[in-house]
């Protein structure tokens, strides 16, 4: 088993091709939920959880039901990819919400309000589609899912920390709120560009 390959995928998704700052995925929660550090952490944990499950489920669906060379009935159903992935993610989020509510009420208290928002988080569908486009195997897809979630959380938590301080800063009125958050994101993206020279292995 070649683990350096998995490390390359993980570092790639967390730092080099950070989902938010380099691939522009999941911007709506990134701007919307980054006002407070505590809610940013809650959202981040929920996204890591759902992304991992979504990578796993969508990979199984694609290779066992849709792709003709490996599926159980050998019919080319790959055109159903987008429809089936979004349905899988939506129902997955619903199930996770019900399970957590029953089994871990404390966790539900912490993550509950963020879960419905995740269905339309394009980063989750994005990671499922990318896993297929890159031709990852199941283990690689799982690692990519976890790493993408961590990358999202990292960007979100850093941003929330900055925005809590920005509240105290004297900002020109038209720039207050979302515009300054975008400019901050731009500066963070410049910092993350520094990772693009990173080579692993």
């Amino acid at each position: 088993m070649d683990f350096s390959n998995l490390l390359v995928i993980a570092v790639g998704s967390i730092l080099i091709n950070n989902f938010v700052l380099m691939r522009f995925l999941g911007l709506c929660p990134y701007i919307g939920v980054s006002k407070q550090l505590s809610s940013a952490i809650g959202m981040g944990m929920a996204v890591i959880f759902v992304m991992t499950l979504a990578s796993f489920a969508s990979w199984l669906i694609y290779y066992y039901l849709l792709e003709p060379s490996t599926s159980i009935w050998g019919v080319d159903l790959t055109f159903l990819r987008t429809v089936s992935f979004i349905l899988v993610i939506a129902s997955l989020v619903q199930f996770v919400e019900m399970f957590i509510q029953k089994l871990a009420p404390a966790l539900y208290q912490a993550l509950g309000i963020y879960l419905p928002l995740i269905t339309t988080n394009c980063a989750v569908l994005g990671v499922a589609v990318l896993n297929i486009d890159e031709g990852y195997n199941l283990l690689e897809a799982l690692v990519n899912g976890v790493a993408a979630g961590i990358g999202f959380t990292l960007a979100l938590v850093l941003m929330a920390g900055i925005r809590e301080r920005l509240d105290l800063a004297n900002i020109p009125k038209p720039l207050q709120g979302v515009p300054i958050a975008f400019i901050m994101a731009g500066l963070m993206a410049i910092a993350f560009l520094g990772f693009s020279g990173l080579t692993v292995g």
Partner: protein
Amino acid sequence: MKLGHEFSKGLIEDNPVLRLALGLCPALAVSSSVFNAIGMGIAVIFVLTMSNLIVSVIRKGVPQKIRIPVYIVIIATFVTVVEMVMAAFRPDLFKALGIFVPLIVVNCIILGRAEGFASKHGVLASLLDAWGMGIGFTFALVLIATVREILGNGTWFGIPLTGPGFEPVLLMMLAPGAFITMGFLLALFNWRDEAKAKRLKDRVVKRAGFITRQPIRPEGGK
């Protein structure tokens, strides 16, 4: 005219990207050239029109509890149509837009309009709303792409604009340029809004002063 307003509100006043901050991911990701921006805009206009049309037609027959999954399946179906047509006829564009073509499904503008507008209004109003919002989205994308392409590449829609003396700012083509452009455009729209609100307020204050024949003083002033 009320129907006219359903169309025109999406262009500037309630522009989905620049005023409502919806559909941000594709707005930033595909705006490195005007050509890609227009391609994405056309794809979104098509999906938005068809989903608003169908949702509006079936709005009375959809049970309240499962409406969101129903809308998502409708949207995903048309996105698949766009994917297949684009892959067949414009493979270059399909490749440039990459995963953002399937991701039109989770573009919040489309689900937002289906849930917030088409499920409550008639067919004609929903179509006009879809066109207004779709064109507003395209306009915002082209605006961002114009800034980025001119500064980052010295061209507009592939036409060279700047002479050889201009050194293109590579940063504008990369991710940071997209964020920074977006931030300043949003600020510009905020500023314009504020100036308009202030003008309106001044006019009201002036009229009030005329009626009472007294200059308006700030409260507590003696």
